[in-house]
């Protein structure tokens, strides 16, 4: 029952934050809850609790492989959030802090859910909790982004529920007793009714793919990431998408066990490569550096999906990449948030010369750019290399070629935009704004920690992590 604490701690902290009366001290609940949560998560990763066979939730190898990452992401973001909320002291933060904590609890629940129904409920709750976070800024653009997020995300979540029902009916038709846990569904094997299984896979992939932001269901992403505060963007890009990806992996496990592995691999590969291509093309065109991060996120979701499609070692590499992408994205989102505040603008027309106005943030942004475009000492390089190697080993040369081509295009797009805002002469309006923004430790240290994590994962991946990814990949893809 220790794993229940991972869900209970943030939820209790959320209740605490809601009743806490002091605006100034309330944000400190975030790092406190984050620290406890991270400590619990790593302790449970090292000493995993036993998993009951028919339990509805539990810390199985897959949850073990990604949940600590979400904890770390939240902890570092929460430190930043304290500094951010101090800058934005004019806004009430009761709802914001509470929603962040509930979001952490629901993400932990969704990652640990062993039942299709529970997974859906948690994902739905997390989606709704994001809404107050997205319209924290209360501008017209923030409302528009929130509205699109609700409509597209709500439709996605509805489709995934329909898919869950189809999978349940598939099991029922195949003689199952209505047990919707993943272990029960997997053990049914090819007794599952095939037409319903196909319908379920299509709907679940579309539904959770929408949450994950795979093209062409990615349309909410640039708007939401562009308008949300940096902390929220980092948590969405690193936490929410991970939940959706894990959901797709778990469903894929069931569908593979039923003997439809060829179908899942083909569809995932198509979605993955298409997302990478769409994201790369948009990266070449967008003038807005916060939307750029969203397209980069779409691209990396494509990378994860391609990894999942390759199976076996590809899934291992995808789990590795989940860590790399989320933590590196954290650095990018937080430093981009700093630059956004310092420059008072968001497009290349308004922003330039940030190397003079916000030198530390600009440096972090450039380093993060190098990390996310897979330059060697950073983690993403190694995970993407592993995916390419797996593609060659399984004989999918064309997949590898398309994958590398999209990476190259994305590299052009990202560097074009980042150097355009870092270099050049600062705009006159931005100079006045930039003097108001001070790069305090609170807003500089968190992205630095993320960069450090990314570097550490690349140079010396801890063996504990490797073991958990091994176990998860073995569970998800039983082939040798």
């Amino acid at each position, binding site marked *: 029952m220790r794993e229940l604490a991972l869900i209970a701690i943030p939820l209790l902290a959320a209740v605490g934050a809601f009743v806490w009366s002091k605006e100034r001290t309330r944000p400190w609940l975030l790092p406190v809850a984050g620290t406890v949560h991270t400590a619990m998560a790593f302790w449970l990763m090292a000493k995993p609790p036993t998993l009951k066979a028919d339990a509805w939730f539990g810390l199985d190898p897959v949850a073990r492989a990604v949940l600590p990452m979400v904890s770390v992401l939240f902890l570092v973001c929460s430190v930043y959030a304290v500094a951010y909320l101090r800058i934005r002291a004019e806004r009430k933060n009761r709802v914001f802090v509470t929603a962040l904590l509930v979001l952490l609890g629901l993400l932990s629940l969704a990652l640990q859910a062993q039942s299709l129904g529970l997974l859906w409920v948690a994902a739905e709750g997390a989606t709704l909790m994001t809404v107050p976070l997205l319209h924290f800024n209360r501008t017209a653009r923030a409302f528009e982004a929130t509205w699109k997020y609700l*409509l597209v995300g709500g439709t996605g979540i509805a489709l995934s*529920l329909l898919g869950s029902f189809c999978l349940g009916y598939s099991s029922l038709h195949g003689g199952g007793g*209505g047990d919707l846990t993943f272990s029960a569904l997997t053990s049914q094997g090819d007794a599952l009714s095939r037409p319903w299984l196909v319908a379920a896979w299509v709907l679940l992939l579309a539904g959770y793919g929408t949450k994950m932001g795979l093209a062409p269901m990615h349309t909410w992403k640039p708007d939401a990431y562009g308008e949300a505060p940096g902390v929220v963007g980092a948590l969405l890009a690193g936490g929410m998408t991970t939940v959706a990806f894990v959901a797709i992996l778990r469903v894929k496990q069931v569908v593979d066990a039923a003997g439809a592995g060829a179908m899942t691999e083909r569809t995932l590969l198509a979605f993955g490569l298409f997302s990478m291509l769409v994201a790369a093309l948009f990266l070449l065109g967008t003038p807005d550096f916060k939307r750029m991060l969203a397209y980069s996120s779409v691209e990396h979701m494509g990378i994860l999906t391609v990894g999942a499609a390759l199976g076996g070692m590809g899934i291992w590499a995808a789990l590795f990449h989940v860590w790399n992408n989320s933590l590196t994205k954290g650095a990018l989102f937080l430093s981009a948030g700093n630059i956004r505040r310092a420059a008072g603008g968001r497009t290349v027309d308004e922003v330039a010369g940030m190397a003079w106005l916000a030198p530390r943030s600009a440096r972090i942004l450039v380093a993060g750019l190098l990390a996310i475009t897979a330059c060697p000492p950073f983690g993403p390089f190694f995970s993407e290399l592993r995916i390419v190697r797996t593609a060659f080993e399984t004989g999918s040369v064309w997949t590898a070629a398309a994958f590398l081509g999209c990476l190259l295009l994305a590299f052009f797009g990202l560097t074009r935009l980042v150097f355009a805002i870092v270099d050049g002469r600062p705009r006159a309006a931005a100079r006045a704004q930039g003097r108001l923004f001070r790069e305090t430790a609170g807003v500089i240290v968190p992205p630095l920690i993320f960069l450090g994590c990314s570097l550490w994962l690349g140079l010396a991946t801890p063996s504990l992590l490797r073991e958990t990814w091994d176990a998860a990949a073995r569970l998800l893809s039983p082939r040798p």
Partner: protein
Amino acid sequence: MTGGLNLLIALAMGLNLVALASSRLPSVIRAAATQGMVLGLLPLLLEQEFHWMVGLVSVGTVVVKGFVIPHLLRRALRAANIDREMEPLLGFIPSLLLGAGATIGAVALGGALPLRPEHANSLLVPGAFATVVCGFLLLMGRAKAISQVCGYLILENGIFLFGLLLIRTTPLIVEAGILLDLTVAVFVIGIIVDRIQREFDTLDTRKLTSLKE
């Protein structure tokens, strides 16, 4: 038993088309609410003997989908002082014909998918698919926020209809999940509607176009 069940589901499918053809917001809200109430009666018809859980789901569905949510929507309509015309992005006749096509397609699809013997003669599966598609059409084809919410409600009704296939075997958590989802979703949407209105003085989502590539 199956006759009564099928009649109610056919009624729900008809209400889809009514919603698609309505040109005024109150009538769409009414169609969605009536459909919710019709669907709320279905769990009672499905079960041979009365079970308190099923009764609770039934009552809950009728109250929430038939009264609470329509009331919230009507209040938003009044509070925001919205013009009651629908302003379709997709014309009424095309959406009506598409909806009818989807209904026919759903019946054909329901015939093609393998069903358990106790569901073989019911319209549950075609009704669910038709309702989901019609909800989707309404969601995509109307410009006003409230009509999009109604489309979402109809979409959810379709999913609820599908969930009835599993009501005997799975715990009712999924059912509870839907109700929870609906209340919260509409609650949140209501707040957003309020905000949009305050910002733009209109509930026309076509004005929400500053974010685009």
